């Protein structure tokens, strides 16, 4: 094992003496000239739900594949459940459960056959497998379909079966790569509830990647924001949002008035002003106080104002502040 203890000199948020569920140090992975991970340092405590947030192509799936022993990093170190992913991949594999972005299943098997095989490969005895199948099927609610061929399952059922397969051996750390991408809102809520239940009732550490801000906000104890292979922010969602301090007023507008942004900036209650794609963003220490003067200034301008709303900062605002881009915009670029 490559000395995890030596790498624990600067434990961010870790309990002293407790092995982190996931830790990486200067992790780098590139594919030809494309750098997917550009020196990732992160620390996830046992029992946490850690949300890894970023646009498509930011490096989320690459990181998961390194942590799950499917990809070897070019440099740096990574430990899962206290074991080095390169030096001790077998020790890592028996401790992790993984549900990748696309449900990785064999359509020709029945759900029960797939879960039984999974249990056998994790060394479980037949009696243990039967017991665990009862447990995980209770949890993921596949119902009578368990003896049907997987090829007949809906997308949501496949995702839930994939999750069940990841849980058969009671992993210490569960990796979920974009667990709700492509699911309808109802299925998404259901997966969220299952993730929370796994964490609260079983104490499983959950490392999930997502491109949905509301998902990270709803589930994660802590969020890491990744952009172009680097972590640009890391902390509880509320702390990250509070770090922006200001409320936001968003005006949907059309037309042109070159001077309006400067006039808004001159208002005492306004801190910053920016315009992006038909929207003017005004940040202020207090939206209720700033709303009226901003509305008056916009009314005096040559712009047509379609709506004017105030809200607290979101994780997207944090992302925009740190990278100068929206998550969706950056994703579409990559």
């Amino acid at each position: 094992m490559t000395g995890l203890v030596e790498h624990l000199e600067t434990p961010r948020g870790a309990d002293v003496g407790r092995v982190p569920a996931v830790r990486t140090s200067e992790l780098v992975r590139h594919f030809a000239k494309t750098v997917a991970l550009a020196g990732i340092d992160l620390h996830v405590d046992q029992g946490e739900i850690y949300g890894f947030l970023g646009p498509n192509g930011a490096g989320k799936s690459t990181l998961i594949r390194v942590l799950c022993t499917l990809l070897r990093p070019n440099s740096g170190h990574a430990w899962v459940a206290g074991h080095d992913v390169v030096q001790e991949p077998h020790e890592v594999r028996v401790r992790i459960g993984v549900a990748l972005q696309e449900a990785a299943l064999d359509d020709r098997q029945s759900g029960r056959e797939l879960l039984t095989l999974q249990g056998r490969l994790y060394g479980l005895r037949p009696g243990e497998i039967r017991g665990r199948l009862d447990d995980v099927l209770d949890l993921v609610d596949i119902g009578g379909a368990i003896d049907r061929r997987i090829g007949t399952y809906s997308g949501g059922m496949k995702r839930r079966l994939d999750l069940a397969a990841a849980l058969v051996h009671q992993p210490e750390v569960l990796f979920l790569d974009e667990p709700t991408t492509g699911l309808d809102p109802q299925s998404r809520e259901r997966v969220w509830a299952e993730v929370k239940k796994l964490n609260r009732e079983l104490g499983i550490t959950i490392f999930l990647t997502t491109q949905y801000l509301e998902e990270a906000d709803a589930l994660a104890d802590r969020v890491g924001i990744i952009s172009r292979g680097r972590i640009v922010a890391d902390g509880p969602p509320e702390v990250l949002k509070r770090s922006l301090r200001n409320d936001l007023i968003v005006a949907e507008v059309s037309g042109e008035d070159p001077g309006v942004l400067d006039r808004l900036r001159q208002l005492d209650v306004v801190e910053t002003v920016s315009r992006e794609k038909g929207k003017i963003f005004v940040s202020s220490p207090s939206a209720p106080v700033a709303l009226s003067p901003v509305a008056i200034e916009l009314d005096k301008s040559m712009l047509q104002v379609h709506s004017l709303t105030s809200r607290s900062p979101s994780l997207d605002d944090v992302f925009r502040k740190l990278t100068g881009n929206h998550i969706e915009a950056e994703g579409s670029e990559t």
Partner: protein
Amino acid sequence: MSEPLEVRGREAGFLRDLRSVAGRALRQVPREPVSVLSAIFIPGFFYAVNVGALENVARSLGGFSYKAFLLPMAIAFSVTGMSRAQVLVTDIQSGYFDRLCMTPVRRLALLLGLMVADVLVIIALCVPVLAIGLGIGVHFATGVPGILAFIGFSALWGLSFTGLPYAVALKTASPAAVNASYILFFPLFFLSDAVMPKQVLTGWFSAIATYNPITYLLGALRSLILTGWQSRSLLEGLAALAGIGSVSLTLALLALRGRLNRGL
């Protein structure tokens, strides 16, 4: 989930991994009966056509039983395509191979388990083809032990050749490329004494057949039917299998290592 964390994952051990992987592959066989039925029908068709067309010619050449002479070719034709390589391609494409690789399963068992399944299917497939041969009057000079040895040789041939489609599957993850890999079987077979005895082959064809390992595999199989236990023929057959098997299995293992290293 009332008593959490009682059961924990652990390594199952190589033999259990092998049984698990082979068991999964074998469960699929009766669900896709077309592949097995075609493996009986196509060689059966070739066998019937060749016997019908060439039996009198063969009789004029030396008075041997052409039905018996041709039976090894029918068996070899039948078992050569019996490989789970296409299943492996599907697993790679669907991401299921990755799921398997994230379990503690031994990497070698992922490949050898499929090959074990292939050998068992081949043994099962030999029975109806042999039954056809015996039914039309082929007699084994070596008796029942010879029939068992014949099945053993056939299984070893299937195993020796199957490394090639697995190597292609692991290297390319392409169903078309795997299908193309079976094409190699045809020149290997038809440039041997598969259809006519070596003694009547001439010129360049005879030279190629002399150096073609398939000639010696078929010679070993024929000796069990036609002439009795002949250690020289059997050893030459085993050497031919060892040669082909060592090349194809080495390629398969290198391709497995390459695929895993591309990831790991």
